[in-house]
């Protein structure tokens, strides 16, 4: 790997050593990253899955507009989310009284807002496909609107797990929004992506690459776990 147009080579081996040494600062950064992103993913799931499933199984005025909007919001630029949230959470903003700016909570909210449209839109698509398949059977069993949402979410649980993973991946890889609303405070709101940005700016490329490897490894481990879960489910749950 060539850096800065010169002949200098980044030593990936020493980058890995740094990571594998289990440095407590590094572990705390990785831990905070996971806490923030897992919490944001679960919060977005708690809102996005029921909402997506409701839109999928209901007919009402403005439904098409909501679907178009959800699909459009999937591409929400993180920096814009970060900036809007920054202005809202700032002491001079409408939600300033909560004192959430530059806290992990602000980062969780930012990531939740960022991936909520993704989870809701993909859930809507997945559940609508299932609904086409199940509609007659569930109607014949006289399952009501709430019951069918719960049934379809359960029936689509493996597809939904993949959707949550997509959301998790996007949230974990994001840097712009958490940098703005978290402030990248050492030991408090510094996560993997903001550390990578910071260490790169300090010319500390080994550590940046090392953290990059951890981030990629994490996302890959979680993907593999989900894939294994799906494979297992295909064999056992039909």
């Amino acid at each position, binding site marked *: 790997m060539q850096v800065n147009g010169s002949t200098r080579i980044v030593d990936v081996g020493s980058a890995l050593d740094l990571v594998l040494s289990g440095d407590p600062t590094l572990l705390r950064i990785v831990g905070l990253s996971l806490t923030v992103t897992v919490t944001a993913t679960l919060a977005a799931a708690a809102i996005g899955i029921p909402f997506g499933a409701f839109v999928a199984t209901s007919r009402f005025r403005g439904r098409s507009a909501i679907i178009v909007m959800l699909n459009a919001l999937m591409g929400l630029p993180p920096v814009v989310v970060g900036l809007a949230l920054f202005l809202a959470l700032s002491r001079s903003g409408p939600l300033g009284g909560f004192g959430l700016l530059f806290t992990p909570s602000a980062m969780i909210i930012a990531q939740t807002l960022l991936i909520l449209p993704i989870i809701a839109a993909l859930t809507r698509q997945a559940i609508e496909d299932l609904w086409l*398949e*199940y509609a*007659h*059977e569930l*109607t*014949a*069993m*006289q*399952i009501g609107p709430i*019951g069918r949402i719960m*049934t379809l979410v359960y*029936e689509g649980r493996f597809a939904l797990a993949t959707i949550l993973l997509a959301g998790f991946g996007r949230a974990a890889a994001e840097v712009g929004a958490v940098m703005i609303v978290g402030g990248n405070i050492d030991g408090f709101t510094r996560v993997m992506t903001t550390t990578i940005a910071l260490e790169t700016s300090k010319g500390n490329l080994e550590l940046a690459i090392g953290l990059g490897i951890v981030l990629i490894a994490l996302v890959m481990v979680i993907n593999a776990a989900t894939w294994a879960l799906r494979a297992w489910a295909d064999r*056992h*749950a*039909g």
Partner: protein
Amino acid sequence: MQDRIVDDPTSLTGSDGPLVRLERVSYTAGDTPILTDLWLDIASGPPTILLGPNGAGKSTLLKLLMGLVAPTEGNLEARRVLGGRLPRMAFVFQRPVMLKRSAAANVAYALRAAGRSTSGNAIRDLLDRVALDHLRDRPARRLSAGEQQRLALARALAREPDLLLLDEPTASLDPTATKAVEDIVANVAREGVKVVIATHDMGQARRLGGDVVLVVGGRIAERSATEDFFKRPSTEAARRFLAGDLVLST
């Protein structure tokens, strides 16, 4: 879904009356007429066979009876059965959708949907009736087509139906699996459940039927007792259908 059923205790009372009565019922999908001007009583007794070529409207007629679709014109009335309640109905589709869980859990789901106890005994009883108790823990989607159809029957029976509607339940099954399904249906009918079954299998009509309703081109072409239908068909459409001609309209 029962909004088309007239909730009037004075209509259609008496134990000899029909469970469901269709008066002047038509159903149109968009501009295409599917069913036209049907008059039909479904009374308790041996199974009623809806016979007719593909596309004649048999499935739609069953869905009308179930309340899955509403008539575009005419009336559909349900009689109150003993105890003053409306008849309970259950439906088995040609290709039933299995829930992604075990056979037992599929039955439990149907019991819960019907507001009934999901005790181990209740589940075992239903699985026994369709000879599937030995596969109770098997994921339902891993069952063979015939086993899935029997599990669908168990789910339908979980509703304790007065009227059991079956839409070509054996159309995609081999003879052995077909016989297993027919045996269960015959037993259920003997227990007093009114069975209405759509099929284009004349042998099945002969084996199960109390009476036959011949549907051709969205109209009822003939209705008679099974034996009469096959031996002494009274309409030209029925004669041609039995002779194996392509019958497209009455």
